[in-house]
């Protein structure tokens, strides 16, 4: 129950860490989480259980994380600032720790407007909270863990010992300020960082150069984000519409070629693009891991958890280290 985080142990061992992502369902049935946990188990050191991503109501991150943990998959619970004030956040952190969770990623959370951006109705009229922001949330976790104190100053009988994570968008605007952005999260107490998906490795390299100059890579473990592309359309969408993500035209071109190679056969077009997507992901993993200061990769096979095993094996990152 009080074992340290497996993710932390992998990072401490100096081996490249692998995290994955598991999206909970819009359902009161946890079977899907259990199924996905089995797809990911053994192919990552920990998996993020997203906290109502795109502001869509799903099984909560904490509940999903406990379900995954029971299956033997180490979870990274996520905590957005969008849905809870500091009272609810700290209460949930205490509960999550009591349930055996050891990793927590602090994020602002997508605005509730996103929930209705696609085909869903969502809850665009919801009230958001943002009592604290990501930096402040990281600070709260650190204060609870290291000082045994709540944000308000009251003592905790037993402090929650979380391995504290935060996200980072290295390619976001203003580009030069993103370095300061990370610096603040590290100063606040982030033990590990998972970055937004990287397609443009050159931009990321340049940002990492600044990060290493400041020595931030020694104070936090930066895991480069790799989103597994599934189609040319997805890449185009990510390039044009996802904040802080730019996709080099050559990658989009490769996916278009893969699609065209299938001619009019739609099933094959999907197959070819998925195969090419996995190849691209593996290449990106290798390129990211070569960048000085990088401690691992955060692989996001969004709603495609079944691809993880192949990707991790092809990337030469299998088997994952085991600690007893």
């Amino acid at each position, binding site marked *: 129950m009080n074992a340290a985080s497996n993710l932390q142990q992998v990072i401490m061992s100096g081996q490249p860490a692998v995290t994955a992502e598991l999206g909970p369902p819009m359902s009161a049935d946890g079977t899907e989480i259990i199924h996905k946990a089995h797809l990911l188990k053994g192919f990552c050191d920990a998996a993020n259980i997203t906290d109502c991503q795109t502001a869509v109501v799903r099984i909560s991150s904490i509940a999903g994380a406990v379900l995954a943990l029971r299956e033997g998959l180490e979870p990274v619970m996520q905590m957005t600032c969008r849905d809870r004030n500091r009272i609810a956040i700290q209460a949930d952190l205490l509960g999550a720790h009591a349930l055996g969770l050891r990793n927590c990623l602090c994020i602002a959370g997508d605005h509730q407007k996103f929930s209705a951006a696609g085909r869903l109705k969502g809850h665009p009229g919801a009230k958001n909270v943002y009592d604290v922001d990501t930096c402040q949330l990281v*600070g709260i976790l650190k204060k609870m863990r290291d000082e045994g104190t709540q944000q308000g100053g009251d003592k905790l009988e037993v402090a929650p010992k979380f391995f504290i994570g935060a996200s980072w968008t290295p390619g976001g605007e203003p580009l030069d300020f993103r370095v300061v952005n990370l610096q603040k999260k590290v100063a606040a107490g982030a033990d590990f960082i998972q970055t937004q998906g990287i397609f443009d490795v050159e931009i990321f390299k340049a940002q990492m150069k600044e990060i290493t100059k400041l020595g931030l890579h020694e104070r936090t473990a930066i895991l480069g984000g790799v989103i597994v592309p599934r189609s040319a359309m997805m890449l185009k969408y990510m390039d044009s519409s996802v904040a802080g993500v730019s996709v080099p035209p050559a990658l989009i071109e490769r996916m278009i070629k893969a699609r065209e190679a299938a001619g009019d056969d739609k099933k094959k077009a999907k197959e070819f693009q998925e195969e090419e997507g996995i190849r691209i992901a593996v290449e990106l993993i290798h390129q990211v891991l070569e960048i000085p200061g990088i401690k691992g990769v955060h692989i996001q096979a969004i709603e495609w958890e079944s691809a993880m095993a192949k990707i991790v094996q092809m990337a030469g990152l299998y088997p994952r280290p085991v600690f007893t």
Partner: protein
Amino acid sequence: MIVGTQKPLDEIWDMVKDFKDTLVLGCNTCVAVCHAGGDKEAETISSLLKIRAQMENRDLTVSHSAIMRQCEPEYFEPVMQELRQHDLVLSTACGVGVNYLSARIGNIPVYPAVNTSFYGGVQEAGLFVELCAGCGNCIINLTGGICPIARCAKTLMNGPCGGTNKGKCEISDEVDCAWFLIVERMKQLGTLEKLSEIQPPRNWSTARDGGPRKISIEHLRQYEKQEQEKSELPGGNA
């Protein structure tokens, strides 16, 4: 100033249609500047309601009037008797004016004709933008004069978040990212390094979260009280 927008006429009609005699009362300060509730708008609403009453064969009396401010007692003194002659006062003031008048008028309802939107400024003729949230604890000296509470969709104190896209907010490409503006402004001012400091969790009790707020200027209240007492003495001005 307080910026508002006129409610849709259908919604206003539903409020007033069952009252025999409605007075549309304009407010000639903030809501007049934003063309939502000054004397002109009160007159327009009154005309539209009369036309609607005719179309629906309802025998309603609708008239209009306006005062300078619906949030201070002195402006009501000359008109309060007149207001009480009607069955309903439809106020085109901001929510402050509607509350204020409602508490003082007696047994007559006061309904709102305007949706009070925000504290803002005039960006250009006909365009009003929110610039302050009235949080009760101003920190924009730290953010280049740009308020992250009013202008960041997530009220971030240590922004920007990952949602900045081409200088715009993730909620809309028509909304500027406040933190993008803050960073650029701090660069211009040569004070960017100030943004490296982590701003701690805020004390929101000075904002609406602390409950309804009151400001009491004691010396002014004391003075008014003394003057009142003096005037009540024999030989005073009463």
